[in-house]
């Protein structure tokens, strides 16, 4: 098992190097110059431009800038934001818990709704229920997040007044961050009203972000269940007179879950990508919104540092899924 983990870790190295190259070159390939953007309509004198260019190291060859980036990265230094003048690592870490909390809630929603929906569709194959579940999940999968978010805001926040329009918690509460996850920090502070507020603010963005994973999970659960339901051991279980509920929940679902769990693991990347749009709509103070701002301002250190950290997290989760898989199914290790 240790050898298996070691091999998996070694395989991450070329991926990580690839990520640093993409992260470094991506933002530089976009037209636009951070110094000129900062100067705006006023413009900037050639002398002042040269001073700033030298200060930021932009006058050096690109390859030298890349190796500076890698050298600093290996020492855990992602550089300083051109806009806020604060270390990129602390900017990221200040915002990451908000994204994590939103993603976890979205995943919870996706699993709680998607899994039973998939089981229901599989057990009622070909019926109106099956077609409805699949139709809804296809719609959910195809829904543009931006439009879906605004639609829900208009309905539930503006018209019905059930949920807040945007934000993370009511401005009345100021909770000192411990974990950075407000639903946990409010409980640690023993403030139930604040907890309820944090949960209240989480509902709509959580649903919007969780819609696509929910659709994917529902469809995957359905097809896995259909496959498993046709297996001999399920037929045997039925023949032995076990209740339909027991056959589905104990014999079929447990085996169908293996592929579903993999799909859930893969949704981490989808959630982080979806978070960028969801956070913008709901003014959710996470890394997605931060990255959008950094890209529009051509804040090179923030964009490349942020991309590397996000890729690192996705790789880490995938590694954990691989390892967990190896534990469940020893054949994978070979």
């Amino acid at each position, binding site marked *: 098992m240790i050898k298996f983990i070691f091999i998996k870790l070694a395989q991450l190295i070329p991926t990580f190097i690839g990520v640093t190259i993409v992260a470094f070159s991506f933002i530089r390939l976009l037209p636009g110059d951070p110094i000129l953007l900062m100067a705006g309509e006023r413009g900037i004198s050639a002398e*002042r431009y040269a001073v700033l260019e030298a200060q930021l190291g932009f006058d050096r060859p690109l390859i030298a800038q890349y190796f500076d980036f890698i050298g600093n990265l290996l020492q855990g230094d992602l550089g300083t934001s051109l806009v806020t003048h*604060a270390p990129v690592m602390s*900017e990221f870490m200040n915002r990451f818990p908000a994204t994590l909390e939103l993603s976890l809630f979205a995943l919870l929603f996706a699993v709680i709704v998607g899994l039973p929906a998939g089981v229901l569709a599989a057990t009622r194959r070909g019926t109106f229920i099956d077609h409805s579940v699949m139709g809804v999940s296809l719609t959910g999968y195809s829904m543009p997040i931006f439009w879906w978010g605004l639609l829900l*805001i208009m309905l539930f926040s503006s018209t019905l007044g059930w949920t807040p329009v945007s934000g993370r918690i*009511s401005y009345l509460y100021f909770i000192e961050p411990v974990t950075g996850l407000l639903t946990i920090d409010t409980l640690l502070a023993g403030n139930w009203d604040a907890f309820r507020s944090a949960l209240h603010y989480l509902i709509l963005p959580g649903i919007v972000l969780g819609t696509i994973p929910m659709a994917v999970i529902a469809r995957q659960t359905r097809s896995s269940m259909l496959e498993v339901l046709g297996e001999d051991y399920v037929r045997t279980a039925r023949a032995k007179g076990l209740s339909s509920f027991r056959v589905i929940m104990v014999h079929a679902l447990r085996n169908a879950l293996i592929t579903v769990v993999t799909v859930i693991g893969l949704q981490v990347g989808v959630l982080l990508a979806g978070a960028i749009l969801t956070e*913008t709509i*709901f003014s959710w103070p996470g890394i997605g919104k931060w990255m959008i*701002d950094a890209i529009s301002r051509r804040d090179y250190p923030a964009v490349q540092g942020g991309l590397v950290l996000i890729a690192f997290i996705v790789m880490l989760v995938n590694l954990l899924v691989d390892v967990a898989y190896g534990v469940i199914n020893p054949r994978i290790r070979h």
Partner: protein
Amino acid sequence: MKKTLLAASIATMMLGAAPVMAKTLVYCSEGSPEGFDPSLYTTGTTFDAAGKTIYNRLVEFKTGTTELRPAIAERWEVSDDGMEVTFLLRDDVEFHTTDYFTPSRPLNADDVLYSFRRQMMEDNPYYQHNNGNYEYFTAMSMGELIDEIVKVDDHTVKFVLTRPEAPFLANLAMDFASIHSKEYGDQLLEAGTPERANRQPVGTGPFQLIGYQEDAVIRYAANPDYFRGKQPLDNLVFAITPDAQVRYQKLQAGECHAMPYPNPSDIDEMRQDDTIQVLEEPGLNVAYLAYNTQQEPFDDPQVRKALNMAINKEAIIEAVFQGAGEVAKNPIPPTMWGYNEAIEDDPYDPERAQQMLDDAGIEDLEMSIWAMPVQRPYMPNARRTAELMQADLSRVGVDAEIVTYEWGEYLKRASSVDREGAVILGWTGDNGDPDNFLAVLLGCDGIGGANRAQWCHEPFNELVMEAKTLSDQAERVERYEQAQAIFKEQAPWNTLAHSVVFMPLRQEVTGYTIDPLGGHNFEGVDLK
């Protein structure tokens, strides 16, 4: 008041987090501040969150105007030769007492010296810490303008200038010139944490920072020792909401009391809503089309004038600004002193324009019109504007091609002396002084930079440069009026529009005034 705010008041009382019936105004701001030291940045978002809220300056703009009023300095004197400006400071200005700093003395001359020296003296530790990146101070040429700053006594400071410069006082009212606490700065240096000055600000302003959660919310409490008296509001909250549509939804839902930068298309609907009031005022801005006056055939004023007369500006105001703007005839807005009311704009007259082009020997002219890729306060939709111009110009036989670039690239290329075609751009005033438009955008020094027409016309330049050195405002007005007449005759730009600024507020908000300079200031604002 809607449910949310009611619930909020009840919850506040239950929590005991603030005094019962505490008045809290929530402002749905458009973005996150880059930091809380206004001398380091150039964006209005940061000035709103820091400069206007937390800090004061020696002199300030009277709310809602571009007139100067005393602030930290209770009065000032300019020497006869205009080379020295002496400020007498108030003796009752206290710095904020916060969790991280307790001032031991009121503001004095040392704080004023400190606030400017950190931006101009290379041996100052804060200058070094920030690599001298005080962009506004640099852009306003303050380093070249100030020869030295002298502490005459504890409450008197004298600025010695290198040349007489009338707009100097207005520059000191800008956010970059905010006054910081030297005592706090020294304390941070001693602790080896100068970077905290940008995160944990200490000012003298109407509100003091209580907490900032990145990209989410900024909380302020009224400064109990404010020298103009405690604010009617107890708390001020900036709820950061970048999307204009979402800001509007929050305003409707009662989740915020004020929002900046509404979508122009929402204004009519807002006006129909009984819970919302929409304030409006002409902005201190101008949108223009700048020809490259150093290239043929645009080096001929008659050609430029002919093209101006071929473009229907009224149609642009109607279609692009949706009525939220007015046709510009001068390069400075009508709300600014020195505006020449007597100037007559070139009329929209395609036939005469065609005749003038024929007289100038222009046939089958092909040109580019540059359309900005972004929306700006002075220009809601440059692409649509360019399309309307293109159609107008085709009627006089001019084949115009619309080009655009990424914003940073656009600004860079538009500044180039070799640039082809005419550029749509604009400007919002920094300090309410005509010099800030006429010299910056049209002066000879701006060629290759902010002077996108690449226009250097000596009679105009001399008037503008002379006006800058005069201390008598009437004399300055005279020069600026003459300069505007020359501008109209020479037509380096087609002056397109001055946009209107809107500020939607909940009905219960009182005492708010739109800042013509584009800022958002909550001093003196109250809730019914």
